[in-house]
């Protein structure tokens, strides 16, 4: 394994100090594979973590890997696969530059998410640099740790607006012994009903997707157990299932190849079918719905059923202004004060999440 081992924390701290003294701002970037995501940041300069790479420690029996933020996910996945382990949250690898840091900053989680948890669920500890250029460590490498506030998970999904994730310790899990994917040709209403029926049973489902009247169910575990569950669920076995799930996870599936805006709806899984014009793909047992559409933001966001969760303008060639759903006033005020608590000079990724901070 030829993973680079390179710690540039001191250079980054120096650059942040300089930025503070000049009254400037920074946009944080590692591999850049998720530049399309979130609002546009117009900062004075880029703080690059691309060179801050390396697996700091990995002991398979501890079920923990600790790596620097700029480490490509593919390197981490390879190291884990050599020991038949994996990242339980199945993060998207948009390209070979996709890093651990970017994945955590956006809390990016893939098809396995509803069944095993999100990126934030597997973060055990982080080292960060806050807006005062201080290098701070929170959490650790152990499974259970309630000393101090859970800053590691707070950083996960904060889109770099609170500080720079420098490294993280992630809980890993054993790879399943076997996997099969079954396909059924049914309507979305039938699919949602079945998904809910199955989700109440102890079945080894590890992914679900519905597109163009086909329901895809992945089962993971011991071979005999998934075969038994497969008989209960029913359907045709899909060949090249691994490629199919990878195309959904990494968004290389034809559905995602489009000039239309891509909307992401994260909803209570039993939300009825939304009547919005456009092409739709379902994941996460109905809890994640993607819409490709030219409808305006207003036309989409006024749909009452979306009150069952929240809406994100995931990617768009046009304006990227109101990407994330507006927060209620007291919650927004809390966000502003937290931003102030971590980044008092207002230098990191201003506006990436919300215009206000």
């Amino acid at each position, binding site marked *: 394994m030829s993973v680079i081992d390179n710690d540039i924390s001191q250079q980054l701290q120096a650059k942040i100090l300089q930025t503070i003294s000049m009254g400037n701002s920074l946009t944080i970037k590692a591999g850049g594979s998720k530049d399309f995501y979130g609002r546009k940041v117009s900062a004075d300069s880029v703080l690059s973590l691309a060179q801050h790479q390396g697996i700091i420690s990995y002991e398979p029996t501890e079920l923990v890997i600790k790596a620097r933020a700029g480490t490509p996910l593919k390197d981490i996945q390879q190291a884990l696969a050599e020991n038949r382990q994996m990242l339980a949250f199945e993060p998207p690898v948009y390209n070979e530059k996709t890093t651990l840091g970017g994945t955590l900053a956006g809390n990016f989680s893939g098809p396995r*998410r509803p069944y095993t948890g999100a990126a934030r669920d597997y973060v055990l500890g982080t080292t960060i640099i806050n807006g005062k250029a201080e290098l701070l460590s929170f959490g650790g490498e152990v499974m259970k740790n309630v*000393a*101090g506030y859970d800053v590691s998970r707070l950083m996960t999904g904060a889109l770099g607006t609170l500080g720079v994730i420098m490294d993280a310790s992630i809980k890993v899990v054993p790879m399943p012994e076997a996997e099969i994917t079954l396909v059924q040709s049914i309507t979305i209403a039938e699919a949602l009903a079945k998904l809910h029926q199955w989700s109440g049973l102890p079945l*080894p489902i590890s992914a679900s997707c519905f597109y163009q009247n086909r329901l895809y169910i992945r089962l993971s575990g011991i071979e005999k*157990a998934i075969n038994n569950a497969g008989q209960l669920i029913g359907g045709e076995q899909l060949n090249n299932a691994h490629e199919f799930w990878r195309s959904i996870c990494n968004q290389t599936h034809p559905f995602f190849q489009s000039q239309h805006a891509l909307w992401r709806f*994260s909803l*209570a899984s039993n939300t009825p079918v939304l009547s919005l014009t456009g092409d739709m793909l379902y994941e996460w047992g109905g809890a994640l719905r993607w819409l490709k559409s030219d409808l305006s933001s207003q036309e989409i966001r006024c749909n009452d059923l979306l009150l069952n969760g929240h809406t994100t303008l995931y990617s768009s060639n046009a304006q990227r202004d109101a990407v994330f759903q507006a927060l209620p006033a007291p919650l927004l005020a809390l966000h502003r004060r937290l931003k102030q608590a971590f980044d008092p000079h207002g230098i990191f990724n201003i506006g990436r999440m919300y215009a206000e901070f």
Partner: protein
Amino acid sequence: MSHTSVEGVNRQQLIQQLQDFLPADAILSQPEDLRPYECDALSAYRQMPLIVVLPDTTEQIQGILRLCHKINLPVVARGAGTGLSGGALPNENGLLLSLAKLNSIIAINSELRTARVQPGVRNLAISQAVAQFGLFYAPDPSSQIACTIGGNVAENSGGVHCLKYGLTVHNIQQIKIISIAGDLITIGSTGLDCPGYDLLALMTGSEGMLGVIVEVTVKLLPKPECVQTLLAAFDDISKAGTAVADIISAGIIPAGLEMMDKLAIQAAEDFVHAGYPVDAAAILLCELDGSEIEVATHTDAVRELLNNSGATEVRTAKDAQQGLTFWKGRKAAFPAVGRISPDYYCMDGTIPRKNLARVLQTMAEMSQQNGLAIANVFHAGDGNLHPLILYDANIPGELKRAEEFGAQILELCIAVGGTITGEHGVGMEKLNQMCVQFETIELAQFHAIKAAFDPKALLNPGKAVPSLHRCAEFGAMHVHQGKLSHPELERF
């Protein structure tokens, strides 16, 4: 840090102000009524509150917090008071806010597998209420008969099954909190994620420092089809530690993987007669769950792994009843130790599993040096130790020695890359060890987070995160004496 000063608060005036929106029987102010609230399950720390209130609606809690905010009165929230770190210890100049009356299960959604409950609902009551749907709530702290979900969220409670099913933070979806200013804020979502910062994670385990939890939506899981328990005996505790690593590296994640040492085994056996091998240096209890095929396959694999790692005996429960018998001694371990010692002090550190043998060996040496026996009962699968230090509070100086021994154990946990608390919280108990685990700039960041939620520092003041002043003082004194000379002094 002196925003909390309430000198001159008149109890009678306070009662009158509270009576504007609270019924008279929801306000306790007589010493005999306040007494039951003077401590939580860490009874070495006691403090009478100024007043206790028992609201039964969210609106009343908003009223209480608005009033406290206005008059700068400290507030300590309390669930069932089963906490083990003094997190619910009252403030002598403050109000104790009991959430015990908010004990309704508001809604169960079997389709979404969630339950929306008030904070005073007991942990076990949730699993009991949803059993009819074939579901359960996974986190199961040993106090689950009594402890409440609000307290579980405040402490990020674990239990014996968190190796497979996670902690409270992994098993809740949404909470409603009331800020110190009285705002009702919903955190989390009905979906699987939400916009903005992960305040759900920040609130979980925040020990009542950031807001008052008034509603929790928990995630429920389908009950596993089948459960099997194995019991393995070892003549050497380090072999038991190796067996734990072997099971994990074989790709098996048991539902529970618990270890007991010789003293704990003997105490448990004398108490509940679970048929434990009393000559063993350690026993491992391994619970496997899942489909019948999965459990059967893993049972065979684990039995072989245990034999190969040098177990002197491996038992497989013949039926559910025998499985429960295997667990009986583990579950009764704390009261069992209580029978062989007048008092015991329960610690809660977590270490990387690989250091288990080394830490156990060092603790045995510390036990000799301190002249106090120690029984070990712990969640071996996730490295969460619960050493029980045996002492007699009636012997002058023994409590102090037990506390010193406990502090040494926690510092040992930090030294091997672990943490001072896996699931019991910092509370009042481990403030000094927080100074050892964290750098000053990290503690300052915690204080900044606290101030973002509670600028006047009125919520549970003096708990969970030590003041920098306290750490400076502790650090200096630690070098000379290893112990603060006046632990009763307010140093926040």
